[in-house]
């Protein structure tokens, strides 16, 4: 397996680029790359030349994360002012603005069927689920507060929810916290199942393997990528190599590799067979906040990986 740089756009945003997601193709257009930045814009790029399709504003403070609906028609973005904006990808028309005080909003992701949008709720230690047809809040998955007499002030922050990931079947939702724990929920019953431990620093990114639905990958500030068997509640492996925080992980559509972006300015490709980094890309000059594989399927041929960085640039790679 191999990554090959295709195209880099310097100054793709006016400020640090923090978020990236692929919008699936529709009947009328191919899949597009959606990026969000501290410059309060969400931009849409057409691969492989990364032509800027559109810049959309509408957020105050920085854009934290972006997510696209599986249909490719709508997308959502979250920002530091704790709003989620849902908009039509092609027209940029705002469909809904979501907020659930006092929850902040961090990562968000549509479930595989596209019926629910999950939003990591930050300090509320919960994940909010929104119905994508009515845009009503349908459930709040609360992480149980640790037991013990004095968890009031200090421990309150620790379950701060940063990241989340839907299992491929949409039955499970994993979310990662500041204290390094990963919580697994049964979505249908809106029930907390168990924790996965191993990290002790913020888990900023989670990704399920699209091939093996039990396999969950986590990237943490402890510079490690962990591989968990969610159902078996076991730590299947730990991969080290990044020199600083792992900010983002994503699993390749073939399930054989994981890409990671780190504060150490690199993008790495990990061979899951060898459980080792097989390639290190150093095209970025600052923290790499997001890496995203283009989902397989559709007319677009060839694996693509996109990465965005604090250095305001976007890079596109061919994955094979």
């Amino acid at each position, binding site marked *: 397996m191999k990554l090959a740089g295709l195209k880099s756009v310097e100054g793709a945003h006016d400020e640090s680029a923090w978020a990236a997601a692929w919008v699936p193709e529709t009947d009328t257009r191919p899949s597009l790359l959606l990026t969000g930045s501290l410059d309060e814009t969400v931009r849409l790029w057409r691969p492989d030349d990364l032509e800027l399709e559109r810049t959309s504003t509408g957020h105050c403070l920085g854009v934290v994360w972006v997510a696209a609906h599986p249909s490719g028609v709508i997308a959502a973005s979250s920002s530091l002012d704790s709003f989620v904006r849902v908009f039509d990808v092609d027209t940029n028309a705002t469909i809904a603005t979501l907020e659930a005080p006092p929850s902040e909003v961090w990562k968000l992701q549509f479930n595989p069927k596209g019926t629910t949008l999950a939003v990591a709720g930050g300090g509320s230690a919960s994940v909010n689920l929104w119905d994508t047809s009515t845009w009503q809040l349908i459930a709040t998955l609360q992480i149980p507060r640790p037991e013990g007499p004095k968890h009031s002030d200090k421990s309150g922050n620790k379950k701060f929810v940063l990241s989340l990931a839907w299992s491929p079947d949409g039955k499970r939702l994993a979310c990662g916290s500041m204290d390094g724990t990963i919580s697994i929920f049964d979505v249908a019953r809106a029930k907390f199942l168990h924790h996965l431990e191993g990290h002790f620093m913020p888990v900023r990114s989670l990704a399920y393997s699209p091939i093996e639905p039990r396999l969950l990958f986590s990237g943490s500030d402890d510079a490690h990528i962990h591989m968990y068997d969610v159902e078996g509640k*076991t730590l299947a492996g730990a991969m080290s190599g990044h020199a600083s925080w792992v900010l983002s992980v994503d699993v390749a559509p073939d399930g054989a590799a994981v890409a990671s972006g780190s504060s150490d300015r690199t993008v790495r490709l990990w061979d899951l067979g060898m459980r080792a980094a097989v390639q290190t890309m150093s095209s970025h000059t600052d923290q790499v906040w997001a890496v995203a594989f283009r989902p397989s399927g559709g007319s677009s041929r060839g694996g693509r990986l996109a990465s965005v960085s604090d250095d305001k640039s976007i890079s596109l790679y061919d994955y094979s």
Partner: protein
Amino acid sequence: MACVYIPVHNSQEEVRVALDQLPRDATDILDILKAEQAPLDLWLTIAREYFKQGKVDQFRQILEEGSSPEIDEYYADVRYERIAILNALGAYYSYLGKIETKQREKEEHFILATQYYNKASRIDMHEPSTWVGKGQLLLAKGEVEQAFAAFKIVLDGDRDNVPALLGQACVEFNRGRYSDSLELYKRALRVHPDCPAAVRLGIGLCRYKLGQFGKARQAFERVLQLDEENVEALVALAVMDMHANEAAGIRKGVEKMHKAFEIYPYCAMALNYLANHFFFTGQHFLVEQLTETALVVTNHGPTKSHSYYNLARSYHSKGDYEKAGLYYMASVKEVNKPHEFVFPYYGLSQVQLKLGDLRSSVSNFEKVLEVYPDNCETLKVLGHIYLQLGQFEKGQEFMKKATKVDPRDAQASLDLGELLISSDPAAALDAFKTAHSLLKKGGQEVPVDLLNNIGVIHFERGEFELAEQSLTEAVGDGIWISLIEGKVKSNPTDAAESVRLYKDMKIFTELEEDDGPVELPWNKVTALFNLARLLEEIHKTEPASLLYRLIVYKYPDYVDAYLRLAAIAKTRNNIQLSIELVNDALKVNDKCANALSMLGDLELKNDDWVKAKETFRAASEATGGKDSYSTLSLGNWNYFAAMRNERRNPKLEATHLEKAKELYTRVLVQHNSNLYAANGAGVVLAEKGQFDVSRDIFTQVQEAASGSIFIQMPDVWINLAHVYFAQGNFDLAVKMYQNCLRKFYYNTESHILLYLARTHYEAEQWQDCKKTLLRAIHLSPSNYVLRFDAGVMMQKYSALTLQKEKNKRTADEVRSAFAELKNAVRVFGQLSAAANLNFHGFDEKKIATHAEYCKHLLEAAKLHCEAAQREEEQARQRQELARQVALAEEARRKAEEQRKKQLEKRKLEDELKRVEQQEEHFKRVKEQWKSSGPKRRERSDNDEEEGGHSEKRRKRGGKKRKERGSKSRYEPEETEADMVDDQEYPEDEDANLNYREGPANETQEQDDDEVEENAQGLLAAAGLEDSDADDEPSNAGKRKPAWSESDDDAPEQQPNISPVRENSAEPQESDTEVIENSEKPNGDDDMDEDD
């Protein structure tokens, strides 16, 4: 059978005496000799026969009788025989003297001998045989030069006198002139080809000394042909056999020695050699017996020296250094000059070295070096000793010489490298590499230590790939390779148990179950540890942890491995596990200062202040106060303690600061180049407001710290930036913060971003400030202080913008201020909402106050905004108007120009016409000659008038334009006047601010008693922020100084420096210390067994 016939006096008869049947009692013979007045030569013959038969007493009896005064009288004219008898006696006593070991008897013998010879000389001064005898005596007495003179007298008379020749040869031999000696022996042999074997022995010895071993051997063999039992020849041959240095030769040699020993058990030489042999075969008992015998039978200095040497060596090898030292000393005493026999000096210095008497050792080694100036071993040993004596340069000199003497001596290069390692790593690396390639070329196995050292030096120089190569080569093949490559797959760990990942040994037990025991040879442990350390450094933490665990699994006493595992766990923020691992290390050694220091750090991280202090104390005591790390930690502890108390107790703070300063100073006294202590001292100074001094200190520390990969001191960068900040040098502070972030933290440290934001804030760079804060929030989302600060910043910006004089702000600015205000309201609103849920622990009321204030401001801002919009509208209209006017003017100007052009054109045409008319006129004038002049002048006047008028008109137009311009300029003045009314609002706002300040302060007063600070009458926000800090939820020790604290205060205010405290003492130092300790190259000093 030989007989002598004693002639019967006065007759023709003879008495026949069979020589082999001499009577036991010599008196019988003497009686006959005396009675028959037998010639003296018969006396001598019989005496000699007795001597030959070993009957020494009879021999002496006869000769003494034969030299008695009566005989002298009777045989007065028989001179030669009398001399012969005296000489025989002289020779006999010479011999006795020679072999006598007791000094007194020896001298008595020599005196007797001298007396006899002198008596002989009195009979005939010139008798050669007497001189020969005298020469022998002198030789025996060791007076070589006089012996030479005696022999010379003989040889001058008869140059072929065999005994004299032999004597002289002996003299020359003793003088060390072997070729001369050889010549003399040869001459003697030519003169007297049948001379005894001893002559050939002499030849053999000469040849041996001359290095002609083949011929020497022939000579010795010839001796043995002549005299099978010649011990000297046997010994000599044996020595030669042994020196041949091959098994067969040695065996033959030993056999010969045995034979010689059996023939004559008291030959010291043979004894020594046998002892030597048994030394090598390890039969120390025999060595002692033999050498002791040898010592008894000889008093020949060199031989004795040899014997002592053998004994000493035997004890040396048995490890009895005291005895060995004594015997070496005895051996050395027997040697006059080291040149004669240098080995005991070597042995002696070795023993002295072993016993720690370095100086004596050095002097003896240097004596060895006098003899063998190029002896590598000696040079190396001297190098090492000088190093131990602290004379590094001399040590290196010797080592370098050793490597030069034998550039192919890998050991020398290796030693040189070890010597240079601490002073000059680059040179050491070169030496090691030389040693490495030499060993490789020689097909020898490269020692693990060497590869380890090479690896470590590369490591220290930051050449990680080379280091990895060397270290991988060092550890060679083993289970660890598959561990590094991740080929060993352990059964998945239960996620709940993965918390204790770095203590998990399951993987090894599983391996043992599957593939048999896991091996780790002891000599590879260090290299493996270093390899693990390297992997850790290049962030391959997992394999590194496996290697550490392997080490701990096989060697549970390896403290450093526990500590590294603890450090990994600590880096990954698994404090509990880290503490457990440190405790494991402490179980091995509860006085391990490194482990204790680390434990202290961990306890500090756990907010266990009292415990941490105790632990640091214990660490300090464990090393008798010499461990600067624990002292530093205590200093930091005091510093933190001084800064920790939010409700500052000035007295307590001062005490703690003073204590901190004292501790830092103590470290600096011990190690005047300790960067961390210097940094600490700088922090204390800065805390006291001495910024210039502290800046100098920080700058120096920063420079010093930039050299090594193991010294990572971001703190000093931050401190320096803080000082710049405190001195108002914001640009430099910003640069410093940014560089620090980038260089040390991969831009991930939100605290520094906060400092950066604060600097931007003070510098009123609002956009930079905002972006910085947003970045910080993004990095550290659960730090609500950052949000609060962002809110305050936006509030401040908006307030400032709205307060600006109207003509100094743009509508855009007002609009963005308005937008920021809205954001601020939202931020405060969220914080307020979250406060209910105890997310962060801010005081709800204060947030509410802020929120309200912002809302109020927002309302006010709406007016501003509208005003600004209105103004903008007006401005636009004005612009539009101005534009239209300008357009109109332009159009007019163009029209004017057009007209002017037309005018000119017309004028030109007119002119032309006029010329034509004039010409026509002229023609007419020509015709009507008299009446033309006045008419023409009139016309030109007219023309002039016209031109002037047009000019005037143009001027008037210009004036008109000017008037317009001034009018349009006037308009803004009018609007300004309008806005004067508006200024009420800002005033109102101020009033509001002040109004709000009241209640805010009140609440604060209720909260805490700290009135003074609030009495300063700050902006509401400032007061609020101060009190917020009190309630701040996050680490009490690491209080985040929100920059808004000093909202309106001059930057010199003390809290400005407060960020320093957090970073002044990152516990990371402990990691470095562990590294350093563990990476001391494990070269062993193998200098005690060079033999």
